[in-house]
Every structure is written in C-alpha cells, then in structure tokens.
C-alpha cells in the first residue's frame, strides 16, 4: 500500500479522491440539486448494493473457473453447465425436502462429483492440449445443455427463498430526510445481503486455504511449476482432482444462489459462462483476489448501467473488458 503511494503519487491521489466521493455519496444526505441532476439517492444506493451483491454471485461462479484455470491451465468452457446443473439439483432438493441449506450441500457434492468425472474422464486424457480441451468442453457444454433441457424442460425454476429471508430490512443508511425531519433509511432485500455475506466468507476462506495451509502451498507450487512439484513426490493428479471438485462444487453452489435470487432456465449456463469469462479476464486469469475485484466491477457496472444508461447497459460490461485488455492485457490483479 505505502509502496504504491510512493511509486504512483498521482494515481494514489486520484484513488483517494474517488473513494472519498463514493463514501460521501453513500453516507451523506444528498443536497436537492444533486437529486435533481442524477435522481434520488435511494435509487443510487440500491444500484450500488445490487451491484455488490450481484458481484458476490459472479464471484462464486468465476472463482471456481479461475481456480481450475490457475492450477491446470484448463479452460473449462463447461463451467456454465455445472452452474445450471447445481441450480437444478438445488431446486429438486429444496422442492422435495423444503430445506434451503440442504440444497446447497447436495448441489455442492453432486456438481463436485461431476467435476471429478470431467477431470478423470476428459481432462486427464488431453493434458496440456489447450485447443483440444477447449473444443471438447464447448462440445460437452452443448451436450449438457440439451440433456438438461430434456430432463427439466424449458420451464423457469425458482428455488424457494426460506421464509425467514423473504422481505426487506432497514439498513442504517440515510436515503433522505422527510419534511417532518424524520429520517428515511434504505430498505433492502435481506436474502441478497445474506448471500453476499456468504460469498465473502467463501472467498476469504478460499484465500486463507490457498495462502495459509499446506494443501494451499501445494496448489500454489503446482501453479508455478507442475513438473518439479510432481518430481518432489506430490501426487499431483490427486491435487488436480481435488481442485477440480472444489471449483465445480462452487459453481454448483452458485447455481443454487442464482436460482434463489434470479431464476433457472435453459440459456443460463451460457450467460454465466460468459459472465465468468469477462470477470476472469478483467480480474486476471488464475487469481482469486482478481476474480473478486473483477466480479465487483462487472456487477457494479451492470447495475449502475441499468439504472443510469439503460439503453447501453449491456455494452458497459464489454467496454470494461476491452479497456482492461487494451491497458493491462494480463488482467488487473494477475501475478505475471
């Protein structure tokens, strides 16, 4: 941090000012002139919160994608199918047992198993052949999409939000002050906050596991030099299977999350594959903090865009990707 300020004083100043402006926008009561120019503060705050919570969902999908890529250099383009599969499993479990929590556990286990199968049956046979892996996973994603269409139909499924999570809560953030002097606080859907919190916990846990544990050390070593690691006697194939299972399982969990606050239907697989590709490209391939930053940026851009420039909202995401590719092609937080 201090090194960054010493090296780039001008950039540091800009960042500090931007953060200060953002904090003021969030915490201060907007003067009437500003409300007239850009609309009500409630709308702005909602868009910011939605962007952050949507970023949480994107992070869940993209972190598994980036984890698998980081260790194995596997571009798993069937990752979106794992997301949708996890969502359908979660729906089936929550519809039959009524338990939301259980649906997460089962979805994680089943998609992790599919991930293990993918790794053992497909990827192990074509290690190091990027193009072949890419083509095969595109093919697999089409096959999976049709299988799921056959099994679940084209219907929309929504995973029932548990009753203790339905409805909004008041956040201690002022949106306006009524003429009577009574403060108006931001009301926000509880379920989105809970889901965001969960994705933060998962993200931090993953970071800790990668940086503070022995298995994390092995994985990081594998990212740097696979062959030497294998030569030191580590059973690298087992590590691969574990990482693949974890990455796939995370996609499955994300499917349940997506099915709860959005909906599941054919086509969602492609949408989330695309979203995680964009997130990972912006954040940097193979980096977990990069996936978090990328998810946050893309989520915010989508939501703020849909409120303030609705017509061009779709373009904004890709514009960011193009900008990042032009200025810093390896991604914002890539290590190399």
């Amino acid at each position, binding site marked *: 941090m201090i090194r960054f300020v010493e090296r780039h004083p001008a950039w540091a100043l800009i960042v500090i000012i931007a953060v200060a402006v953002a904090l003021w926008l969030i915490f201060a009561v907007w003067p009437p002139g500003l409300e007239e120019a850009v609309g009500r503060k409630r*709308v702005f705050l909602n868009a910011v919160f939605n962007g952050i919570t949507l970023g949480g969902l994107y992070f869940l999908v993209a972190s598994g994608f980036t984890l698998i890529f980081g260790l194995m250099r596997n571009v798993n383009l069937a990752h979106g199918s794992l997301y949708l599969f996890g969502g359908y499993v979660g729906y089936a479990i929550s519809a039959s047992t009524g338990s939301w929590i259980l649906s997460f556990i089962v979805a994680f286990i089943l998609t992790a198993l599919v991930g293990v199968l993918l790794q053992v049956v497909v990827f192990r046979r074509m290690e190091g052949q990027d193009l072949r892996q890419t083509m095969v996973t595109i093919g697999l994603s089409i096959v999976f999409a049709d299988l799921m269409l056959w099994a679940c139909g*084209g219907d*929309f499924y929504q995973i029932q939000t548990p009753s203790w999570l*339905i409805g909004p809560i008041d956040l201690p953030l002022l949106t306006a002050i009524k003429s009577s002097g009574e403060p108006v606080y931001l*009301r926000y*859907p509880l379920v989105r906050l809970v889901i965001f919190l969960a994705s933060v916990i998962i993200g931090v846990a993953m970071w800790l596991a990668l940086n503070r544990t022995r298995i994390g050390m092995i994985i990081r070593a594998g990212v740097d030099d696979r062959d030497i690691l294998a030569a030191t006697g580590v059973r690298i194939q087992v590590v691969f299977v574990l990482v693949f299972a974890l990455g796939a399982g995370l996609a499955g969990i994300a499917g349940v999350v997506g099915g709860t*606050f959005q909906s599941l*239907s054919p086509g969602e697989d492609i949408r989330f594959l695309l979203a995680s590709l964009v997130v990972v490209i912006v954040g940097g391939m193979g980096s977990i903090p990069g996936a978090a930053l990328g998810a946050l940026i893309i989520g915010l851009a989508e939501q703020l865009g849909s409120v303030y420039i609705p017509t061009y909202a*779709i373009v904004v995401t890709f514009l960011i990707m193009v900008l990042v590719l032009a200025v810093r092609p390896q991604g914002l937080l890539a290590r190399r």
Partner: protein
Amino acid sequence: MLKGSLGLIALSSLLLSGTAFAQEKIKVGVTATLEGTYTVLGEDGIRGFQTALNVLGKKVGDKELEFIIASTDATPDSAVRAVRKLIEQDKVQILLSPLSGDEGIAVKNFAKTHPELTFINAASGAQETTYVDPAPNFFRYNMDGAQWQVGLGKYAYDEKKYRKIATVGEDYSFIYTQVFGLVLEFCGAGGQVTNRQWVPLGTKDFASVIAALPDDVDAIYLGLGGADAVNFLNQYQQAGGKAHLMGGSIMIDQTILSSKGNAKNALVGTLAASGQADTWENPSWQKFVKDYQDAFPPNKRFPSPSLLATNYYGSTMALILALRQVNGDLSNNQAKYKEALAKIELDAPNGKIKLDSNRQAIGTNFVTEVVDDGKGALFSKVVKVIPNVNQTLGYDPAVFAKIGLPSRTVPECKKY
C-alpha cells in the same frame, strides 16, 4: 443369421412403406422460440399448433401436410436464419412464423425476397410488421400488441380510478406496441403516465429497476414476458413491493400465472388486457381449452392454454382451412391460396377474426383480472369483452398515422 434376416425385413418394410404411401406432400415450416428468455412461450405455442392438428387433421384433399419445426430465440437474426434454413434446406412452401415482435418485423421483410411463398404469422405482435410497408405474402391472424391493450386504459381510469401510472417494459417492438396501446387510451381518458422504464430482453437482475420504480403512482404497468417476468416478480417479492400492478398480454398469461414458486401471487387482482381470457364462458373457447387439455398430460402443459397456444392454434387453423378451400392448389406462385387466406373469416376460439387490407387481423379483445381459483392456481377472469378491434384502434387512419410509430417515447401522453 436371424439378426441379418430380421434386419433385411425391417429394411424392406421401410422401403415398402416409403413407396406404398407415396403421395404428394405440402411442406410447411414452423418456427417458435424454443431457446432463450421466451422458451416457455415457444413451447406452449407448439402445443397450440399440435392441438390444431389434432382437431383439423393433416390431410388436404389427397395431399398430406408435412411440418418441420425450427427453433429461434426471439432475436430477429435467429428468426431469419431459421426461416432461411426452412426454405433453402427443407424446401418448405408455406411458413408459420414467427413468435416474437422483433422476429415478426424481420421475417416480414425477408418475406419480400420470396414473393412466391406464403408466410403466415404465428404469434408475433409488433405494430410495424403489418402497418408499415406490409409484405403482400405475409398474413397475420392475431391482433398486434396495441390492439391487445384496448379497453385496459379506460377500465383502469374509470373503474379502478387510477390517475397516474408508470410502466416497466422489455426494450423491443412488441412491448413498445403494447405500451403504445395503453398510453393512448389511458392518457386519452385523462390519466398520466409519469415514467416509462425499458429493460433489455433477457434481464435477470431487476433489483435496481425495482428500486427505481416511483412510489407516487396509483399503479405500475408491467410489460414483461417469459423468464424476465418471473425474475421480476421474484425480486419484487424479495424487495417487499406492494404497489397495484397492471399487466401486458404476455405478463398476465398462463406462461407466468402457472410458473413455479409463490412470487406470482403478487399478481392476484392485477388488471390486464389480452386477446384471450382464461375463464371466458364462450362455448368455442371452452371447447378449445378442453381440446388443449386432452392433447397433453397435465404435467406437460399449463392448466389452460396461453396466448401463444391460442395464436398458434388460430394461425394453423387459417393455414389449413384456406388450403382446403383451394384443395391444396399451390400453382401459379400460390396465387389462389393467398387470395383464399386474405378472404377467410376464422371462427377462432378467442372470437371471430378477419383480415384488413394490410392482411392484419381484426378481432376481439378482453380486459381481465387475475383471480385465484382457491386451489392456488391463477387465472385471468374476463371483466370486459370488446369486439371488432382494428389496427388503428378505432381512430381515423389519418389521425392514427400522425401519432407516429410505437417506440420508447411514442406516443406522448395526451389526447389525440
């Protein structure tokens, strides 16, 4: 040995059946949105189409109709690609296409490059398709989005006493047309439309859109369909939304009313208008509902046909009945068939339908309210039936032309 001879028998019988029943076939291409946001709509459209085949049969004189179904995703280029594939690869002679608004405009324009073929619109409802520069070989037996909103604005103003409303709609031609119909009538009656929000087709996260809804209005009109509508309702429930709602023709429809989960319950009491009403007493409607229900097992269909099923049913009916009138004669660039199509008057399940000089349907419209049948299923209950709705919505054609074409901001909220 046994296997070999069995195979031979199977093969020869296959060849035999090919020759023994060889007869002239008329090939018809059908498109529906079987992918993307409107998948459920496309699937039910195909159910309506199959119900029509069950009722009418596939024979025209001594010829047999052969149908080839292609899938689209509600984007204009997917529709043109599907139609082109049907014409060039499958050599179809008649098209039953497409389902969605933007697709309709594209297919109409494409129809002009194949003047020898006949295009029968399946269900699309953008005004521009038949109103601006219509194609002489494109026939539409369903009303457009604006016609489907006739009666809604007045009813909301007079009976519900709504004075100020805001709209949220998908950003494409069909919903522009729907909002056009609503605004024209509601503002004509004296109401105000304070805010029109447009979201891209296929939006998943509506949280910010919901936050931006104004709270000083009497009702919020929703012009959404398919997955978008379900997502909106789900997130509306999570955000604790409580406003009065009004709905467009594919919003208040079985595709949404019978979706899974309980978010749809926010729609009970919602006022809407459409080319059909689920609980209409009319015997031919009731017969159609029964035909539809008998054709599919309960878990493979909706409790009652959606607007898409009804439209596909009506269009298929026109296709087959007109073909029977000319006894399957498609000679001379299908001239006789096109003439028969232009003249035919349909006794469709949702009322009588005839075509105007642009080959656009004049039909019956329904104002409805959503009711719960007591067992958790939602239906649209008819509150008003308006017969003979034409494309200019009863306006003098010259006045109507001055309003302009439906878009994000047209029409203005005033009396024309």
